[in-house]
């Protein structure tokens, strides 16, 4: 096992744990992005540039964007609901 692989594996394990333990979804999205990044470096170290590239575009572009858009939607709905509640009072 090369040193780069060892470092990446440890980084992946830490980032994965952090993703699970971060309960705030917005911060968790960041942790998950870091996990994706660590994974793609790991895949390069495993001699898999194709997988690394697709991991970067999925975990670095597609998934975070979907999560952030979904969270933005969820937050605005919450805020609208709060506003409606305030008006009713």
């Amino acid at each position, binding site marked *: 096992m090369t040193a780069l692989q060892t470092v990446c*594996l440890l980084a992946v394990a830490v980032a994965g744990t952090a993703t699970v333990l971060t309960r705030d*979804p917005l911060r968790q999205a960041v942790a998950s992005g870091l996990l994706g990044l660590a994974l793609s470096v790991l895949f390069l170290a495993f001699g*898999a*540039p194709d*997988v690394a590239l697709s991991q970067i575009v999925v975990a670095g572009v597609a998934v975070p964007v979907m999560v952030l858009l979904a969270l933005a939607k969820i937050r605005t709905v919450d805020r609208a609901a709060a506003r409606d509640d305030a008006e009713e009072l």
Partner: protein
Amino acid sequence: MLAYLVAVWLLLAGLYGVITSRHLVHLVLCLGVMQTSTYVLLLAIGWRAGGAAPIFADIPRNTPIVDPVVQALTLTDVVVEATVVAVLLALTVQAHKRFGTCDPDALGALRG
């Protein structure tokens, strides 16, 4: 061996997250962590000590290379994860819009 253990750890950690999750978006990302364990496991199984990437662009044809089959499988796997995340997030957005909550424990219109 460390690589295999990291794969096991990711699977367990992700599943723990799913079991204890209080937010659907969190739950979806924990499923993602579970899924990454399969990438690590597959690629670790295919790694050949000192092997080159399986692309014969500028390496001689009898260079030892890592296993390309697991890489093809992992590519499929990555796509699967992205699609499942998309569908689950779409459902989550709708669920929140309808019920005003993202707590998975609030689910259960039909019980018993």
